[in-house]
C-alpha cells in the first residue's frame, strides 16, 4: 500500500507518523533527539513503521490471537531491540575502558562492567517476564542510563574503579550508540520476539501478512526548527508552524485556534477550515512559561513533573506570581515558601502565570476562536488545562477546548499530510 511519512525533529524528541493513502494513521514513532539528525529521523521513522506493521498484524489476527498475546509480542520485540543496543553499548564501553582506564585498574574495571551489564540483562529479562512491570521510559537512552547508574552505584567501589570513571565511560559511549545506525526494525527483531512468546502459530500468519504487505513510501516531509540543516531536500521541508496547524486540524477538523506550549517555546496559530495557517505568533526568545520552566520548578520541589498539576489543583487560595522567568524560578519559589505560602497555592499561581503568557500570545495572533486545540507537553497538565479553560472563558466566552493524548505527534502528522498532498499534485 502507498504510504506517506512526516517527520518532526523537535528539541527533545523526534517523531514520525505514517499515513495510508486515505490519510489514516498507520503508525507513529518517537525517539529522543540526538546530534545525528539523519539517524534521529531514521530511528523515528523506523519506529513508526514498526508500529505500522504491528498494527497490520493486529488487524490480521484480531479474532484468533487476542490482545494479551499481541501485547506480549510487542514487549518481547522491545526487549529484543534493547538487547541489541545493550550488546553494542557493552562492546563500546569495554573498548573504551581499554583505552582510557589506567593499566592497573583495567581488569577490575572490566569485571565491574561485566557485572553491570549482566545485571541489566537480567533485569531486562525480568521485565519481560513480569506481568505488571514498573513503568519505565520508552527510550533506550533513558532506561539503560538509569539502570547503569543505579547498578554502578549499587555494586560499589571495587579495586579503585570509581563511580565517576564508570559514568564517564557511559557518557562517552551512549552518544556513539545513539548516533550509529543499528538494525532495530520490524524484520530484524520480530523473529526473536516470536521465539520469546513460544512461537505462537496464531500469530505467525499475522506476522507473515504484516511482513508481506508492501509499504511503499511515496513521499516524506520533514519539519523542525533550530536546525542548521534538516536531513531532507528543500522541497520536502515544511515549517513546523504549518505542520502543527495542519496536524491540529487533522486531529480536530473544526479547529480554528491552536496553542502549543512546548519545552522551550510557545506557539499560537490560527488556521482556516482547510487547516492552512492564517496567522501565528511565536514566543521563542525565552523559555519562560514553557515546559522547561515547569521542569525546573519540579526539580526545585523535588517532585516529578507529572505531579505538579495534581498538586496545584489542591490550592485553596490565589497566589499571584508575576514572573515566569526560568532563571529566577528557584529563587522565587524559595522566597514564597519562606514567606509561608503553601506549595499548592504557589503552584496554582505559577500555572496561571504560564497560561497568562500564552493568552497574550494568543491575543497577538488574533484571539481564541472556536474550536480551540491545545497541544504540547503542558497540555497533559490538569492544572494548566484548568487555568486555560478559566482564562479563555473569562476573555472569549465558552469555547470548545480540544486536547488529544497524542498531541505530541501533531507536527509529524501535519508533515505527513503535506507529504500526501505533495504526492497528489
Amino acid at each position, binding site marked *: 500500500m502507498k504510504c506517506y511519512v512526516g517527520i518532526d525533529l523537535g528539541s527533545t524528541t523526534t517523531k514520525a507518523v505514517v499515513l495510508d493513502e486515505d490519510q489514516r494513521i498507520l503508525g507513529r514513532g518517537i525517539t529522543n533527539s540526538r546530534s545525528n539528525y539523519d539517524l534521529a529521523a531514521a530511528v523515528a521513522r523506523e519506529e513508526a513503521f514498526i508500529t505500522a506493521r504491528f498494527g497490520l498484524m493486529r488487524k490480521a489476527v484480531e479474532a484468533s490471537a487476542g490482545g494479551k498475546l499481541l501485547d506480549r509480542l510487542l514487549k518481547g520485540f522491545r526487549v529484543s531491540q534493547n538487547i541489541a543496543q545493550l550488546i553494542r553499548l557493552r562492546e563500546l564501553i569495554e573498548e573504551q575502558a581499554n583505552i582510557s582506564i589506567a593499566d592497573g585498574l583495567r581488569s577490575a574495571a572490566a569485571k565491574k562492567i561485566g557485572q553491570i551489564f549482566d545485571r541489566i540483562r537480567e533485569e531486562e529479562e525480568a521485565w519481560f517476564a513480569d506481568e505488571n512491570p514498573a513503568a519505565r521510559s520508552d527510550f533506550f537512552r533513558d532506561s539503560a542510563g538509569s539502570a547503569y547508574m543505579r547498578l554502578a552505584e549499587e555494586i560499589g567501589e571495587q579495586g579503585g574503579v570509581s563511580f565517576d570513571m564508570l559514568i564517564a565511560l557511559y557518557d562517552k559511549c551512549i552518544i556513539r550508540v545513539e548516533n550509529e545506525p543499528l538494525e532495530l526494525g520490524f524484520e530484524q527483531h520480530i523473529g526473536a520476539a516470536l521465539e520469546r512468546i513460544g512461537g505462537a502459530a496464531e500469530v505467525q500468519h499475522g506476522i507473515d501478512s504484516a511482513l508481506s504487505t508492501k509499504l511503499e513510501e511515496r513521499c516524506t516531509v520533514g519539519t523542525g526548527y*533550530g536546525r542548521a540543516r534538516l536531513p531532507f531536500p528543500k522541497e520536502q521541508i515544511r*515549517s*513546523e508552524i504549518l505542520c502543527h496547524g495542519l496536524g491540529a486540524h487533522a486531529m480536530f477538523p473544526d479547529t480554528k485556534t491552536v496553542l502549543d506550549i512546548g519545552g522551550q517555546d510557545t506557539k499560537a496559530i490560527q488556521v482556516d477550515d482547510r487547516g492552512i495557517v*492564517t*496567522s*501565528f505568533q*511565536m514566543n*521563542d*526568545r525565552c523559555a519562560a512559561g514553557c515546559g522547561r520552566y515547569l521542569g525546573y520548578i519540579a526539580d526545585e520541589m523535588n517532585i516529578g513533573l507529572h505531579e505538579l498539576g495534581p498538586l496545584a489543583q489542591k490550592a485553596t487560595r490565589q497566589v499571584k506570581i508575576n514572573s515566569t522567568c526560568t532563571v529566577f524560578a528557584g529563587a522565587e519559589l524559595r522566597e514564597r515558601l519562606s514567606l509561608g505560602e503553601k506549595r499548592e497555592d504557589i503552584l496554582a499561581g505559577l500555572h496561571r502565570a504560564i497560561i497568562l503568557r500564552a493568552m497574550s500570545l494568543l491575543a*497577538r495572533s488574533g484571539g481564541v476562536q472556536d474550536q480551540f486545540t491545545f497541544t504540547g507537553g503542558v497540555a497533559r497538565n490538569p492544572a494548566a488545562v484548568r487555568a486555560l479553560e478559566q482564562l479563555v472563558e473569562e476573555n472569549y466566552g465558552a469555547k470548545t477546548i480540544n486536547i488529544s493524548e497524542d498531541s505530541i505527534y501533531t507536527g509529524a502528522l501535519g508533515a505527513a499530510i503535506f507529504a500526501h498532498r505533495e504526492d497528489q499534485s
Partner: protein
Amino acid sequence: MANADKSDTAQKDQSMVIQKRMIADHFKRLEKAPETKEPVVYTFVPGNLTELIRSFDCLPLLPEINALQSGMRGKSRDYIAEAERIGHSEDVCTYVKCDVGMLKAGNIGPTGTKLPEPDLLLLSYTGCYTFMKWFELLREEYKCPTVFLQIPYQGDGTLAPEHRQYIIDQIKESVIPALEKISGKKYDEEKLRHYLALSAQAEDDLVAVLNSAKNKPSPIDSYFGGVYYVGPIFSAFRGTQDGVDYYRALRKEVEDRVERGEGPVTPDGPLDDQKYRLVVEGPPNWTNFREFWRMFADESAVAVASTYTKVGGTYDYGFRHDPNDPLGTLADYCGGCYTNINLPGRIDMLVDYIREFEADGFIINSVKSCNSFSAGQLMILREVEKRSGVPGAFIESDLVDPRYFSAANIKNRLESYLQMLEARRQGA
C-alpha cells in the same frame, strides 16, 4: 559585443563606485578636519540640515551611521559591552551604546580613520526621544556647544502652521547663530538655495528609483538594497553635486535593469525570479545584515517598499527641498521624516505601499532597543492586516547588538510566513 558588455558592467558598478569614493573622501576630510580647521557638526539622520550645514562650509557627521557601520563591521559587540561596563543599561538603545563604546575605544570610525571631535552638536529632535540623551551624553564627553532643534511631532497627522513657524524661528535664532559662531561665516542664503536645488534634483531621481519597484520583477530590493540607496541622501551628500551624480547614475542603472527585466543583485547573486513581493517596516539588523538578506533572497522574496528608507525624508510622498523657501522647506523636511509621523500615519503608509507596490505581504522587523519604532508595532501589524487584507509577519531582532539576533528564530518565522503565503496562494 565585448564593448557593450564592458560598458554594461561599468554602468552597473558606476553608482557603487561613486558611493564608495564619496564616502572615502568624506571620511578623509573628517580625519583631516582638525588640521584643515573645517568645523565639524554632529547631527542625526531624521531632521538633518545638511544643506544648511554645508552652506557654512561645515562638515556633517552622523553618529547613527557610524553606529550602524560598526554593526556591519562586527565591532558593535565590544563597543556595547564597554558602554554597559561603564554603567549603561542593557535596556537602552544600542546605537547610543555602540557610539559611546566607540568613543571610549579611541573614536576610530568605520573606515578606520580617526573621527574628529565635534565643534557643534546639532541635536535635531525629530521623532526619537533617545536623540536627546545621546547628545547630552556626547556633550559631557566633548564639552562643545550644543544647539537643540525641537521638531514638534505630527500628532494629528500634519505639521501645524505654528509648529512650522516654531521650527523656522529656531533655525533663525539658534541654529544659524551657532553655525555662524563655529564657522566664522555669515548665513549665505544664496548658497543654501543652490544646495537645496541640488537636493531637489537628487530627490527626483531617488523617488524614480524607489518607484521602480512597482515593476515586475522589481529591479531593486527596497529594504536591504534600499538602505544603500538612501545612504547619500540621508547623510552628508544631499545638496552636493556628488549626490546629484550618484542618483543620476543609480537611476540609469535601475532603468536599464527594468528594460532588461532584471531583478536586484543580492549577496547570492541576481534575484530575477521573484516569488514574493513584500513591504517591510522597521529598521534592519546591521550585525547580521547579509545573513538576514539571504533569508529573503533564498526564498525568492524581494522587498518592494520599506518605511525605514523614509527616516531621512518622505520624498515619495512628494516632498522636495524648495529653494524658493529655504527655511520653510527645512522645517517641512524635518516635520515629514518617518520617525515624526504618528502611528495612524504609519499604518496608512504601509497600507498604501502594499496596494501601490502590489505586495503579497508585509514584514515587521521589531527592534528590541528602539522604542520609537517598536512601541505599537503589534497594533500596526493587526491594523495593516485588517485594512490591506494581506497577512503580516512579525520578526524580532536588534539594531547593532548581535546578542539579540537569533538566526534560527528569525528564519523559522520568515519561512513559516512565506510558506503560509504560498499555501494561501495555492488554495485560492
